[in-house]
């Protein structure tokens, strides 16, 4: 392997401990977290079953789809952030940054299993299941739909796991520790990172077009796929920021997240990618607003998003409130609050903005999905709430394996030393 001559040259210049990051066994799991998450999961399952059995409106299925999209986006976003770090050769946080990004990877296979639950609710969600769309039945039909989604998700998740396995290898971690050279990461990760990034763009776009856009089959927007995966990417970043802020307090004296520069960098990413999300939103908005083509504008009108329509006409609908809250939480607050240097370095502020951002992104998924099913009122009730809690519980449980590695990396002395440089 090409990295070995370099590794031996490196070793002769500066000795590196063979085991760069302490093993998983060193970090013990907090029992209360497991208990709370398990209870939340049970609540969610109960609520889901109750919702499916009793209600006539598809509350349970809507909530399931929204939560699936949101939490899958966070987990997958994290993994692709790690790939993006490799592509840009980011070594500002050593292996700790990579572990932080990959913290939620264990949710991905669970998400794959959860996806298949949607098969049973397909008639309640997608209109073309019961009423085939005349213009394009080849694309929008049940067998092809679930086959391609299943295939795409499976391919993406297998690639993710391969990537994560290589990302946790010793030589890759050693590369991440060395910040004072122009050396590229080892060959294996150099091949996998772009593959993960490209697959992410393709698969997430497919999910957006299929799972969300086809809820309103008459509507189309070419940027929608990118809008969805930009939002998922950002939700991964703020999940990382929130995790870093929480771990900073809980890990005791010295850890990676007490480094001001690490907080600063996470704050900068939060700021920059919230602007990027707003950009993709505006790019779609202005084209649809300006063209004023009814086939396109109805999507905005239903959500109460179309302001200053033809000759100043604006439709007032209850959906206006959540629709306009979303850009406030996802763009306005991060942009105005995190503009300066100090707020980015203040954990309470960064954590607060990240928390609000996660709520905002969840609401964004809700606003994208549910108005296509229930255009006239906001159907949120206890069923949707319990299912959301259930997903939160499952996500929390799945975050444990990745989190253990993150904690180990954040407290490792070599990582702290590398972050100094």
């Amino acid at each position, binding site marked *: 392997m090409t990295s070995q001559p370099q590794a031996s040259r490196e070793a002769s210049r500066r000795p590196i401990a063979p085991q760069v990051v302490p093993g998983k066994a060193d970090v013990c799991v907090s029992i209360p977290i497991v208990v709370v998450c398990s209870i939340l999961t049970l609540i969610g399952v109960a609520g889901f079953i109750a919702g499916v059995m009793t209600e006539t409106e598809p509350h349970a299925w809507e909530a399931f789809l929204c939560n699936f999209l949101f939490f899958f986006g966070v987990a997958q976003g994290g993994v692709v952030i790690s790939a993006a770090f490799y592509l840009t050769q980011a070594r500002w946080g050593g292996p700790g940054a990579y572990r932080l990004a990959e913290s939620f990877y264990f949710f991905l296979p669970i998400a794959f299993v959860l996806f298949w639950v949607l098969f049973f609710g397909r008639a309640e969600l997608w209109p073309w299941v019961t009423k085939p769309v005349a213009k394009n039945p080849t694309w929008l039909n049940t067998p092809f739909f679930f086959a391609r989604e299943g295939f795409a998700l499976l391919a993406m998740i297998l690639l993710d796991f391969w990537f994560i396995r290589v990302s946790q290898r010793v030589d890759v971690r050693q590369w991440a520790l060395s910040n004072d050279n122009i050396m590229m990461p080892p060959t294996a990760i150099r091949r996998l990172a772009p593959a993960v990034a490209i697959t992410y763009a393709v698969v997430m776009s497919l999910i957006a077009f299929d799972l969300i856009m086809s809820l309103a089959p008459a509507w189309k927007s070419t940027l929608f796929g990118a809008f969805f995966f930009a939002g998922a990417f950002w939700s991964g970043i703020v999940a990382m920021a929130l995790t870093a802020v929480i771990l900073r307090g809980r890990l005791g004296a010295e850890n990676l997240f007490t480094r001001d520069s690490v907080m600063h960098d996470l704050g900068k990413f939060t700021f920059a990618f919230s602007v990027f999300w707003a950009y993709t939103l505006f790019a779609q908005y202005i084209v649809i607003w300006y063209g004023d083509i009814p086939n396109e504008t109805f999507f905005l009108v239903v959500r109460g998003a179309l302001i200053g329509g033809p000759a*100043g006409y604006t439709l007032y609908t209850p959906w206006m409130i959540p629709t306009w809250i979303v850009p406030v939480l996802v763009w306005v607050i991060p942009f105005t609050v995190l503009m300066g240097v100090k707020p980015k370095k203040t954990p309470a502020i960064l954590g607060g903005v990240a928390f609000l951002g996660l709520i905002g992104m969840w609401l964004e998924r809700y606003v994208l999905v549910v108005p296509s099913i229930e255009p006239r009122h906001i159907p949120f009730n206890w069923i949707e709430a319990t299912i959301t809690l259930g997903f939160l519980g499952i996500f929390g449980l799945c975050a444990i394996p990745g989190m253990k590695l993150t904690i180990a990396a954040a407290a490792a002395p070599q990582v702290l030393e590398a972050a100094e440089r």
Partner: protein
Amino acid sequence: MAAEIELVGSFAEEEECIHAVEALRRSGVEFRVFSPIPSEPLIHAIGRGLSPVRMFVLLGGISGVLTGIAVTVGTSWEWNLIVGGKPVVSWPPFIIIMFELMILFGGLSAALSFFFFARLPQLEPIPGYSERFGADRFGIAVECDEADSARIEAMMREAGAEKIAHEDPRPESAEH
């Protein structure tokens, strides 16, 4: 009054210059640093804090947004026709103009406030400057009495000064 001279220490390495700066700061001596490269550690060692340019850029940006609103909304109201089905005051296009003017005014404020604070254009020569400091040497110039000069020279030599020149603090001609 003792004669004032200009001590100009020349350093080959950034590290040495930073050591000298820290030593001089600790002893409370006023000095001027010359550097051929933008060195963050050196600027940090001098310890004057963040530049006020950023305040002016923020003000410039805000004034750009306000100008954008004034120009777009004002001119649309002046000749208020509904054009292409778009209302007279239509925010999506106006946001674009507001954004561009924000960047324009912010950028120009950055340049102008930089000139103001850095006192450019600098028409008179700065005492202590030598061409080497623009090329490959770091320099520290201290204006002091003859009596103090030995102590300051010692500090600079300890940090690793290559060469220390005694110069006239008020040169008539331009730097050589």
